[in-house]
């Protein structure tokens, strides 16, 4: 009975937060990630790639699992279903397109574009997390919401670099691309000491992430201001029509 009630209330919440179009997109994302993972295992691809695809696939399913298994008093169960869209976009961009389809090697600067776009998306994901942690019906003021999203996106960017550094330290990896040697063309434009090469990828990732976060924070702020203005107009119209109805009734 309790499970039935939980499923009903989660379905209601899902219908409030997301559209069927978004649900369709999630299903496509889940199928692609599972396909990529199974294919990587069957074709004996690089174990690092398989590990990344496993982690990304788990991340793609995380929020629905939190919603179903956890009570709503834990903030993870209160994260909006909308956030699944953002997570699937990130996971597809990095894991499936970047690593599985090897676009990182084919498109130069794909990593930089991904960091800009990724941190832009993370502002919106951060906003959803902030709303869930806040646990109240009162909406966040646009500037506060933008600051929360902006800040949590930087937290995610730094955490990602720390995670990559730890992986490289303990698994002899090259996730931070420290073995990168810049091209002759780059060295002519930006001559630098050879010992600084290891920093290039990490610092460009942080700079691109900063740009993405700024743009994301600005867009989120404008979006919420417009949303609040629309809601105020609707409320004012409803009040006006209620008042006129009351007057005609009298």
């Amino acid at each position, binding site marked *: 009975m309790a499970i039935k009630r939980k499923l009903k209330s989660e379905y209601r919440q899902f219908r409030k937060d997301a559209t069927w179009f978004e649900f369709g997109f999630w299903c496509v994302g889940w199928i692609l990630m599972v396909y990529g993972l199974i294919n990587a295992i069957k074709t004996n691809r690089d174990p690092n790639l398989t590990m990344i695809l496993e982690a990304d696939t788990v991340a793609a399913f995380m929020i629905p699992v939190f919603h179903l298994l956890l009570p709503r008093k834990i903030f993870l169960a209160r994260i909006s279903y909308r956030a699944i869209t953002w997570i699937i976009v990130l996971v597809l961009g990095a894991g499936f397109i970047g690593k599985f389809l090897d676009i990182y090697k084919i498109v130069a600067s794909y990593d930089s574009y991904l960091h800009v776009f990724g941190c832009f998306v993370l502002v919106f994901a951060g906003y959803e997390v902030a709303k869930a942690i*806040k646990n109240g019906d009162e909406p*966040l003021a646009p500037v*506060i919401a933008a600051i929360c999203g*902006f*800040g949590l996106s*930087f937290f995610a960017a730094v955490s990602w670099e720390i995670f990559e*550094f730890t992986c490289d330290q303990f698994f002899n990896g090259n996730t931070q691309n420290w*073995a990168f040697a810049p091209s002759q063309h780059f060295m002519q434009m930006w001559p630098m000491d050879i010992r600084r090469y290891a920093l290039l990828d990490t610092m460009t990732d942080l700079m691109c992430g900063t740009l993405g976060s700024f743009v994301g924070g600005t867009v989120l702020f404008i979006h919420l201001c417009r949303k609040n203005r629309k809601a105020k107009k609707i409320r004012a119209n409803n009040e006006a029509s209620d008042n006129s109805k009351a007057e005609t009734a009298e």
Partner: protein
Amino acid sequence: MLKSKLKSEYKIFRDEVTWVEYALWWVARIMLICALVKATKGGWAASVLLQLRVEVAIMFMLPVLHLLPRKIFIARLSYRVQDIVLLLLLITAYYGQYRGFYSTVEWFDVYLHVSGMFLCVFVGYALTMALKHDNLPLAPVVAAMCGFGFSFFLAVSWEIFEFTCDSFWAGSNSQNWMCIDSAHLIALLPPMDPRRYALLDTMSDLIAGAIGSVFGGIVLFPYVYLMNKRKAKKLALAKPEAQSTDKSEEKSISTQEHS
């Protein structure tokens, strides 16, 4: 108009800051100015002198920014932020650079990043309150998230600034990519490719900063909760007093009318 601006700023300053804090500001300023004068007389390196000059200028920046109109958010920043700015400048500029603690005290840079990011959480909270256009209190959990997030922004911005300085000034080693005095840190970690050494200082700064930010966020939560409680109590005390003065005024008016 300037007179009324100065008067209103003085009122806000008296509300936010004690005379003890104000005296400590001047102690810190005098210490750093003396350090700059001695370093100039001692013929120190031009880059270090430039840094010290910029740091002395920063010490006086906030009070000057308060003279801007209050519709610009920086003018709404709490005077309390000056405490944090001066503390950070003393630790980095005076003790770190002038007294040479960066080279003589082991792990000084790490302690600095942990404590610096801890304090930056409070700066982030003050910035958030300044960006809001109203004086309404912020929910403690939202305040903690804003401060926490802002402090990560400041940590990343600092690393980008250091990277830019090292990129444009030959011989600059702000990010310690030369790994000077890093033998202990390298010895702590499992053996690694020497090409990764340049990342060590930056990554240890980010990790230390992350630890400081987490602690700062945890401490900011009860701090804001208690501040909000105190403000609510003050308002509650002020309301009955206002109501009782209104009632006594009404009484005196009615007795006058009767007589």
